[in-house]
């Protein structure tokens, strides 16, 4: 038996996989001050459902897989360790300069951001390595010892080291690491070339600083998690999800906590990849995970979860650039709580202001007075005021109508329904624009991709989003409301190792590249051995045309550059990828190799699994009907189905509403739908 949890802001989701490969979903409220308590509560719910004690169920478990926002929340809330940064002399302000760039050129209300490590805690050491990797100024160890004295006086809890060109020649960073270990035996420290060996010193320094600052806190947190699970009766492996969409043993995250910084959101696409393949063999997909305040989008391209090197903590340009590779998850500030308003000149706006959970939408009756997207869904008839969250919460439909009438319909001069539809339409538009930016960046064609809607609110407008994007199919997985936890259960044990190595197709230094490949392969093999599971390694070249600034990832079957044929093969693979992403190739240009990465993947389970959700089939008949407003059609009496009452593989025409305890799916008159055998809802355009 295996357990996978995803700790969200409101609920902790749990997926339990039984030994026959079937899974079940459970939820418990999150305790913000003690996330482990929510995990244990969810486990208790699962044990109750099986008629077991918590200890008896945990005793059956082989592994516990944990997604956590503990690291990123600590950064956002400023609870990380007091950390010093050591840099090359002359470059103390590395974290202050950042990489430039800004949004909203005429908005002067935002002061320049403070650096991640204060300037007062940033220290210079005399040393310099050149672009080729050779040393022009040797490390001044006497001065370094004095810097460590100053750091001792500064009363810090962790140290980061980021020297120029340490990726090509780590000798100085390593030596400083030894000096730190000797001077402060218990002090956690992070060396930039180990944490994030990339050719951009700001990103490397930022990653090292964030990593070091998280070590004390994450070490304590994960230690406590393991101890409390052991106390409760669990004797298996504790695994933690990483930003790269895989999992590793908790001790690996404690040693490099930045690897788990985007731990939670990176799981939805892992689940999405599984469902996209299962429901129609799609190898490209757009995965949306909806919450009350945000709409998170990720991409599957060529069967791979799309990654980014531009992970921001906080708003782009105004927050901190982590610089660390992560699954690309774009978050749009549009959700059920987004507030609609009409400005003085008559234009409708939806968001970015949100009513959040408190006071929440008007219909929640918690004091909200401004109309939101959820209120619009009530007015349109999408949401049943008497059956919200399976009837757990009564909604105030007249309140929602009054708010939309007063704040939107009257100033726009349109009917109540038209006003409500406009709110949903504009929120849809914001989501569509964000998806379109992302599909361009990741080079996928939405007209050949499936749209996957996860999270409780995905069903409300995903039909409209799929149509705008031209996606041939919309898929609402049976685990939709707990898609991240399901993704955690599906993920493999993975790690990625990187090396900076420069090459150019005009003049390849085969020896340097071979040495880098050898080093990566050794680290990969070591990781596979540590994981104790069967695994394999894939190499990825980071490459670009000569003169370009942004490199692209080129998967390589074998990382050899020793013969002209191998270099020709490298060029062919690079150009295929460049064509896919940018629609152009330039055969006259040389290609530069900037770095290599080894991606290690070890299977977390002994056999393949289809992760079949245990569902009860109930009687196949509509639950009734209600009046729903659709643009272009007006009010239509619309059948309402219980999700678990739909006969598998039978096609129905829209309009329809499909309800479960977690979600409502809206199918408009132009669409049709069916339930697949494993329990997903699939929606397509009706054939005319």
């Amino acid at each position, binding site marked *: 038996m295996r357990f996978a949890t995803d700790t969200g802001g409101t609920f902790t989701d749990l997926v339990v996989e039984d030994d026959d490969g079937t899974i079940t979903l459970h939820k418990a409220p999150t305790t913000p001050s003690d996330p482990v308590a929510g995990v244990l509560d969810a486990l208790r719910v699962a044990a109750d459902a099986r008629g077991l004690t918590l200890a008896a169920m945990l005793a059956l478990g082989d592994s516990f897989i944990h997604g956590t926002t503990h690291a990123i929340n600590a950064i956002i809330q400023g609870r990380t360790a007091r950390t010093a940064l050591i840099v090359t002399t002359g*470059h*103390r*302000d*590395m974290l*202050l*300069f*950042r*990489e*430039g*760039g*800004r*949004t*909203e*050129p005429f*908005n*002067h*209300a*935002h*002061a*320049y951001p403070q650096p991640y490590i*204060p*300037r*007062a805690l940033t220290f210079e050491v005399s040393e310099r390595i*050149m*672009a080729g990797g050779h040393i022009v100024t040797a490390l001044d160890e006497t001065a370094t010892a004095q810097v460590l004295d100053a750091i001792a006086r500064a009363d810090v809890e962790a140290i980061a080291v980021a020297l*120029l*060109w340490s990726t090509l020649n780590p000798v100085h960073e390593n030596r400083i690491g030894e000096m730190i270990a000797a001077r402060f035996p218990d002090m956690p420290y992070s060396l930039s070339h180990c944490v994030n060996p990339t*050719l*951009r*010193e*700001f990103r490397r320094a930022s990653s090292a600083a964030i990593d070091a600052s998280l070590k004390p806190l994450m070490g304590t947190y994960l230690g406590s998690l393991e101890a409390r699970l052991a106390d409760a009766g669990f004797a298996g492996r504790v695994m933690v999800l990483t930003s790269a969409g895989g999992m590793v043993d908790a001790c690996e995250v404690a040693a490099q906590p930045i690897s788990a910084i985007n731990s939670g959101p990176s799981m939805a696409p892992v689940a999405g990849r599984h469902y996209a393949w299962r429901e129609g063999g799609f190898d490209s997909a757009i995965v949306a995970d909806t919450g009350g305040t945000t709409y998170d989008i990720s991409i599957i391209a060529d069967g791979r979860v799309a990654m980014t090197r531009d992970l921001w903590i906080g708003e782009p340009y105004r927050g901190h650039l982590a610089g660390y590779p992560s699954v690309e998850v774009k978050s749009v500030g549009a959700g059920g709580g987004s507030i609609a308003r*009409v400005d*003085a*000149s*008559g*234009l*409708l*706006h939806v968001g970015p202001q949100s009513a959040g959970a408190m006071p929440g939408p008007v219909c929640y009756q918690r004091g909200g007075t401004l109309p939101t997207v959820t209120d619009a869904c009530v007015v349109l008839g999408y949401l049943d005021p008497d059956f919200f969250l399976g009837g757990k919460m009564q909604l105030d439909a007249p309140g929602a109508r009054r708010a939309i009438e007063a704040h939107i319909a009257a100033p*726009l*001069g*349109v009917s109540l329904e038209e006003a409500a539809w*406009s*709110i949903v*339409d*504009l929120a849809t*538009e914001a989501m569509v*624009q964000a998806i*379109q930016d992302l599909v*361009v960046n990741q080079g996928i064609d939405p007209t050949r991709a499936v749209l996957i809607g996860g999270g409780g609110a995905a069903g409300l407008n995903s039909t409209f989003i799929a149509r705008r994007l031209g996606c041939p199919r919309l898929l609402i997985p049976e685990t939709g409301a707990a898609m991240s936890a399901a993704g955690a259960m599906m993920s493999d044990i993975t790690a990625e190792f990187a090396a900076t190595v420069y090459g150019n197709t005009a003049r390849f230094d085969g020896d340097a590249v071979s040495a880098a490949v050898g080093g990566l392969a050794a680290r990969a093999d070591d990781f596979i051995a540590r994981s104790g599971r069967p695994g394999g390694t894939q190499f990825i070249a980071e490459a670009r*045309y000569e*003169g*370009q*600034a*942004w490199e692209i990832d080129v998967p390589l079957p074998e990382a050899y550059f020793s013969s002209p044929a191998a270099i020709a093969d490298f060029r062919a693979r690079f150009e295929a990828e460049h064509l896919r*992403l*940018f*629609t*152009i190739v*330039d055969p006259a*240009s040389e290609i530069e190799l900037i770095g290599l990465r080894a991606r290690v993947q070890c299977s977390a389970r002994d056999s393949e699994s289809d992760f079949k959700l245990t569902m009860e089939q109930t009687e196949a008949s509509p639950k009734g009907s209600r009046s729903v407003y659709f643009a272009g059609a007006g009010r239509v009496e619309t059948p309402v189905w219980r999700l678990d009452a739909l006969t598998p593989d039978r096609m129905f025409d829209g309009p329809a509403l499909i309800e479960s305890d977690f979600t409502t799916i809206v199918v408009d008159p132009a669409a049709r739908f069916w339930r697949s055998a494993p329990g997903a809802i699939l929606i397509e355009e009706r054939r005319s």
Partner: protein
Amino acid sequence: MTSASFNGAQMAVLRSRLDGVVRAMSNTLLRTGRSGVLNRARDFSCCILTHGGDLVTAADSLPIHVLSGPDLMVKSVMEFHPDQRPGDAFLHNSPYHGCSHPADLSVIAPVFDDRGRHRFTLLAKAHQADIGNSQPTTYMGEATDVYNEGALIFPAVQVQRGWKDIDDIIRMCKVRIRVPQQWHGDYLSTVGAVRVGERNLTALAEDIGWDRLEDFAAQWFDYSEARMAEAIAALPAGQVSGSSTHDPFPGLPADGVRITSHITVDPDQGRVTVDLADNPDCMPCGMNLSEACARTAAMIGVFNSIDYQVPKNAGSFRRIDVRLREGCIAGIPVHPFSCSAATTNIADRVANSVQTALAGLQDGIGMAEVGAVIAPSAGVVSGIDPRSGKAFVNQVFLGMSGGAASPGADAWWTVGHVGNAGLCCIDGVEHAEIVQPIIVHRRAFVPDSEGAGRTNGAPSTVIEFGPVGGAIDIGYLSDGHINAPVGVRGGSAGGGADQHIIHLDGSSERLAACAQVHVEDGERILAVSCGGGGYGSPFERPPETVLRDMAEGLISAERARTIYGVAARPDGSLDSETTRQLREPTA
């Protein structure tokens, strides 16, 4: 033609969809451009105009590129090519016909419906690494005229017919522009951006209808105009004059050039007038403004001073009257006066004169002065790379700050200059060292150089760098040494610019403000950029913020005491009593 009007919800959706078309264009340019000035510094802009040349949207483009200019360029294309066809595209960089300056090579393409009617026009403008000047720089301040400047100038010259290049033009460029392969890569990116825009706009029109899209544009202009009128109505009525003085450069008078703007704010009518006619005539140098930059710089000063949410398009622009004089250095240039550096130096002085003048109207309005440019740390470097034996030329962005204080917030430090607004990126040290044969010895902010105020301007940057393995040339035009960025409403000036060369023997020599300098292997350039001015009295700055800056080593204890009136105890905590006394008004 239908006359159906859109409600506020439909307008919001269409606005978003048109912005999406522009973002797809920009993304293409960023990700495929070859020269650093495009792919790292993002010195490019994309926009959609009506077929008649009214700017519809230029989402998040560089302000100095797009507020005015695209409109003038499209009108010149129509004048020279009254019979445009689908698949046509035109090269345009003539400052005498609407372009900002010759380095901003633009591709303009009309978009037709399937019945052959010209509906909209797309424009992508990209700052080139080189444009064929007589010197390897794209900002040739010392150019005595356009002939001495030597740029290839394209006054709306057709470069594509039937979506295919007219190769005559491409060949001309390849023999006259340095590092032609890099140029051609950038050209392909720019054309690619326009064609991506054409494809996406056409798809949108298939969904919405061309007539409806045109109706939307008209109604969007009216909405934007109404928003602009509201924003101006929130200002106090009045007439103010502002000035900002450019340092002496080759071809400029010995005491520099004082730029003056006379501004009238009429909140009742919802109009602002900026009169730039009271300025000197064109001068025999590369510093003359193009009409596009003169107009745009004045508008930037206005938009920096009002509600930032007003859409920037032909509708809101109706509420700003910019009065220009032909033959004026900050007006409409007369051929053959050179406009090589029109987007930066004098243009920055125009925008600064407007926003500092507006700050004089009332507390809470306007901004302090943004620092001047272009220090050698953002200069154009060229030479032969000893590692490959190949020629290179590129603008580097090693360091710049310049941000001015606004009424409500400290500056965004790395704005570059007022016309850029901080959108440009800064080169990573390692990246710069791999792309060019240089070493960056030092890159820092300069303590005690911030423009002190209730809110602060940025501190200066200092960059020390030089060639590795061979000599390089570097061109720059560094304004702001004598006329550092001023503060407003009691705020102080930010740090001024300066530059030196450090020879192999360690001796140092001050360099001219505007020059093309040859730097030998092992020598170093030491470049100090301008900071930015402060807003309001430094005595009103919260003491805890002053102490934070002191703890960070950004200001000295002496400066905290004398400039801000804040005293700290030896442990760095606030000495409230002394601070109170220091801040007491002197009788």
